């Protein structure tokens, strides 16, 4: 297991490098620059600014400089939020994005696995069909529709929850997390249902039933664990989806998370900010995929890599 972790972490380095370089050069192909404001700056100021941030050097040199600083944990200064370094902005935004994403995946796992379990137990009956229908609808609910719709219903009409910002204890988390979790929980419910249905047909389950093992024990001891393998392999893509969903949710509910910095940074040509966020997202997704693989191996020992 340790060798798997080291191997995966080592292969993550070139992957990260490719992502950083691709984003770096993509950004620089864009017309316009970070210092194009409402009023054009005079050429001398423009040139001085370019020089301070090293933007006048050859591109490959800038790329090299960026990466050598990144290795030391320095994401560089933000070009638009002048008084902040990218690290400071990330330190502000990351906890919010991680809280949203983490709570959303927990909620999705709890509701999704429970719903899938209930459906599988009642396979073929009306309850099964109803739950699966709901799950299909849930997977088709885009965050940018459910977010505003929830805000309209619970925020504006019923006045129960705050529509934007991070005040008021933890109430502000409810709607963003629910909007994020809904499509993921639908997908998890379907995977759990399908996984359990195929596991429950297998011989060892029949043996257990013949021996008179109680049904709940069969379900939880023997059925659920192998049935969750497809769910584990879905966790990686789900994490990537949650991170993109978080961009929308942060915009809709006015939360100062990373996603907003990313979109704003891209529009303002704030090169270091965008690169920093992309690097961080890529690293998070790679880490989460590794984590999902470990769960995968734990659930099904046959899948463990040498």
């Amino acid at each position, binding site marked *: 297991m340790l060798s798997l972790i080291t191997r995966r972490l080592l292969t993550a380095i070139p*992957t990260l490098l490719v*992502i950083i370089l*691709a*984003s770096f050069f*993509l*950004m620089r*192909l*864009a017309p316009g620059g970070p210092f194009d404001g409402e009023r054009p700056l005079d050429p001398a100021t423009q040139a001085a600014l370019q020089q301070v941030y090293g933007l006048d050097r050859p591109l490959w040199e800038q790329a090299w400089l960026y990466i050598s600083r990144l290795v030391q944990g320095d994401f560089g200064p933000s070009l638009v939020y002048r008084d902040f370094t990218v690290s400071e902005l990330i330190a502000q935004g990351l906890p919010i994005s991680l809280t949203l994403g983490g709570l959303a995946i927990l909620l999705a796992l709890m509701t999704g696995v429970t719903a899938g379990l209930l459906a599988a137990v009642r396979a073929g009956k009306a309850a099964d069909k109803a739950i699966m229908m709901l799950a*299909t*609808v849930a*997977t*088709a*609910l*885009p965050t*940018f*529709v459910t*977010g*505003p*719709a929830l*805000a*309209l219903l619970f925020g*504006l009409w019923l006045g129960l929850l705050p529509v934007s910002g991070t005040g008021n204890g933890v109430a502000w988390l409810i709607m963003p997390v629910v909007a994020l979790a809904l499509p993921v929980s639908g997908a998890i419910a379907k995977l759990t249902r399908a996984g359990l249905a195929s596991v429950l047909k297998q011989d060892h389950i029949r043996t257990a039933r013949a021996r008179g093992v109680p049904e709940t024990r069969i379900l939880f001891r023997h059925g659920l664990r192998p049935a969750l393998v497809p769910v584990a392999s879905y966790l*990686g*893509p789900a994490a*990537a989806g949650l*991170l*993109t969903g978080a*961009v*929308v949710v942060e*915009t*809709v509910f006015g939360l100062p998370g990373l996603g907003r910095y*990313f*979109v704003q940074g*891209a*529009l303002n040509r704030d090169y270091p900010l*965008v690169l920093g*966020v*992309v690097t961080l*997202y*890529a690293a998070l*997704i*790679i880490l989460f*995929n590794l984590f999902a693989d470990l769960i995968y191996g734990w659930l099904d020992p046959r899948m463990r890599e040498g």
Partner: protein
Amino acid sequence: MLKRHIPLFLVLVIVALALLLPSLLPWGYDQIDWDAVRAPAVSGSHIFGTDEIGRDRLARLAAGTRVTLMVAIAAALVSLLVGIAWGATAGWIGGRVDEAMMRIVDGLYALPFMFIVILLMVVFGRSILLVFVGIGLVEWLTMARVIRGQVMALKQRPFILAAEAAGTPSITIMLRHILPNVAGVALAYLMLTVPQVVMVESFLSFLGLGVQEPLTSLGILVKEGADDMDMTPLGLLLPGGLLVLILVCLTIEGERLRDRFS
């Protein structure tokens, strides 16, 4: 039989309305009715009323649906072509080539691809062509995996072996014998790709990075509605509801097709 295909029927109705309504309605989607700004539903010639600058909601809904579906179909076709080409090549050649090609797919799966697409949109302006290509490039991965699996299974079948033994060139086997046999599965996954693409397109448009004014799409309409929902909730509920309806119907039909072919 009929009841089973309500989703498909609904989609067809929506498509027909999106195609026909613009030429039937008295108002264009970007035409401003100065006498009826923020008109409530069922007022005069505006069935669903008008938005905050006096444009007919129904006309905008039809135009937006048309753009969204057009982008979706085009991008899904891009993903189909790339996915089939990639998956069939990997599956047919097999061995090291297959392994390398599939490693690339696995790697791409794990990337924050959406962010690269957002970067692309910012960098190259927001041409509608780029929206197709960008989305198509994200969505081909699943198709490639599925097609590869199908081709690998087919390769072992006697009729393919026979064709090979008879000296039929690979390219002919591919076009004449393999592709027709993966067409059903490809169609099912194409149908499942369309809602994915609709979601990505609306997502980009929602952030202001997709389709640009004066063109409109369901994503833009949802965004406009969300910004104005405290005044007129209808502006959010109509395009949002329509979008969800399209997504749900397409997903149900796509999954049904997939289950039939696998």
